[in-house]
């Protein structure tokens, strides 16, 4: 039961985008981990990331009738 609640909470967070930044960081580290030489930028701050994420999310047709 506790596990189910935790899964549901995780899903709510993912669906709403509440954990978008955490997922971004994870993805960022995954993509850059195996590439030591690569001169990559540091990850965006949470506020910066959220701005980009939100603006991008609203390109194109997102809602229907």
């Amino acid at each position, binding site marked *: 039961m506790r596990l189910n609640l935790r899964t549901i909470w995780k*899903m*709510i*967070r*993912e*669906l*709403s*985008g*509440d954990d*978008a*930044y955490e997922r*971004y960081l994870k*993805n*960022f580290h995954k*993509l850059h981990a195996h590439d030591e030489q690569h001169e990559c930028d540091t990850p965006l701050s*949470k*506020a910066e*990331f*959220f*701005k980009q994420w*939100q*603006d*991008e*999310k*609203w*390109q*194109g*047709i*997102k*809602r*229907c*009738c």
Partner: protein
Amino acid sequence: MNKTLKSGIWVLISLLGASAVGGIAINRGENINAIWFIVAALCIYGIAYRFYATWIAATVLAVDSTRATPAERLENGRDFIPTHKWIVFGHHFAAIAGPGPLVGPTLAAQFGFLPGTLWILFGAVLGGCVQDMVTLFLSTRRDAKSLGQMAKDELGAIGGTAALIATFSIMIILIAVLGLIVVNAMKHSPWATFTVSATIPIAMIVGIYMRYLRPGQVLEASALGVILLLMSVVGGRFVAEHETLRLLFDHEGLMLAWSIMAYGLTAAILPVWLLLAPRDYLSTYMKIGTISLLAVAILLLQPSIKMPAITQFIDGSGPIFGGKLFPFVFITIACGAISGFHSLISSGTTPKLLSNERDIVMIGYGGMLLESFVAIMAMIAATVLDPGVYFAINSSAGIVGSNAIDAVAKISAWGYPVTVEQMQNLAQQMGESTLFARTGGAPSLAVGMASIFGKAFGDGLLAIWYHFAIMFEAIFILTTLDAGTRVGRFMLQDILGNIWPKMGETSWTPSVIFTSSIVVAGWGYFLYIGVIDPNGGVNILWPLFGIANQMLAAIALSVGTGILVKSGKLKYAGITALPLAWLVIITSTAAWQKITSPDIRIGFFSAANDLAEKLASGTLPPAKASIAPQLIFNLHLDAWITLFFVSLLWLIIIDMLRVCWRSITGKPVLPLTESTHIPSRLVDDWVRD
């Protein structure tokens, strides 16, 4: 589980479903319980999903779970992201489910509960779900391309252009009719007007909170927003009862229409984070929360359906909209049975998240089943009302008269008894001054929902429930209005950008203001005419929307059929070709009748001629005579728009048939644009479970 047991369960489900549908269909004279609608729906959905959908996926489409999806191949951590199937399902459903499945069934209930219910159930499992699933599959195999792009690549330039024009037209008409629905819900209702207006600053507070105060704390901000929304519902009562405050929020339809246009223009120009994005969060929570609550309430309360199975209005004389059962029930209920608009979400948006092809059944087919279920609940909410009350709320003054006594006399004479006292009591319970001629479907749905919620969770709060339901509908109608205006703006900027590149820059302010104004003027015109039309406007606009939406569905199904034939699957092409044929029949018949019918309540030209004659002979009252020229012009315009839609539809069909014929006879056609097979590396299903 052993095989015999499994088969046994499916046999039982089939029997239960058949008896529920049979019970609904042959029941006459006595009240039928709403629970049978739920049982019939769930059994039909279960059988269709288990057998038809999985057969299409396995045999016709041949989904391949070892094949990497665009989300995997093109993963960029931004829009292409392999995502857990339930999360994709959630996003997909939130995107496809709007106010359409709530409004259509409410209006179509004038024919009785049976025709609409059967169309919602069978239209969805054989048409709408197939369209959504096939489009999702095709787009997934084509790097998540949009419907318009696929139409262009696979059929040719005609299909692509048609998809673009259809999308733009639907947007304009949809927004106008939705705006009209909100206006009719707020007309002379200080409570509703206050609550709906309050959603705007509330969305802005939420927007600022999640952008600047606590960046990215989406759930925190949303919780704050939901609390404020609920407070605004309760606060509306205070405003409505306050002597001076109520005057601020008590307006005529026309004034409200101008406000909505001003709002739409502002919303399309303001940055998304301030209004559109936070409003969308709130409307999504409200939508999912309220729909679930309604399902629970129907299960708890098990209300009786009071509307007859079939009314006399199947002959075309219906007070809510004119036109016979065939084809108009199929036009009126678009979303909920089959909605072309879904194909725009199924292509382009959802495939970018899909981590495995085998989830296409659940997301494409299953998502639409859930939307169909929402439509069934709207049908229940409309038909649990006394039919007399239902017709009194939904019939416009132009049909039953603006005087309450005349209206109840006329409605009672149809065989649906209702009294002035009954309507007054109901209005008082709901905290409104009157419920007569509240056309558009939102108020009657709200009364239906309030009575279900009231009986299931306590009768004392009827007025609160009513305004909660109005707020719930208004908030996502306004979201569609904002989002639609913005999409229309982008499309227009894209088109104009071909002529003058500067106009195509989406952030160039003069272009933004210019294109937004054109889009708002487009739907604003129809909204304005709808408000001044004594027959309510919804009766004209909703069928037009239905025709446009079915036309877009026809484009999607044409793309599907064309590709199936080109891939050598002619013998299976019926899965999309048959729903397509049906859509072509109903859309063409409806359009033909709307253009040529001599009945002034159906035919645009005959209505225009009738009005012109009355105007010329001076028999119109002065108030009506002054608006008659505008109404006549509008009727002509509507007729030409309908003709344009149906011509476009046939153009696409003929083009698709041409491609199919060339393919069958071995002549060269545009090559299939399916991307090459790359094996999936998402082993162990890590992303899916």
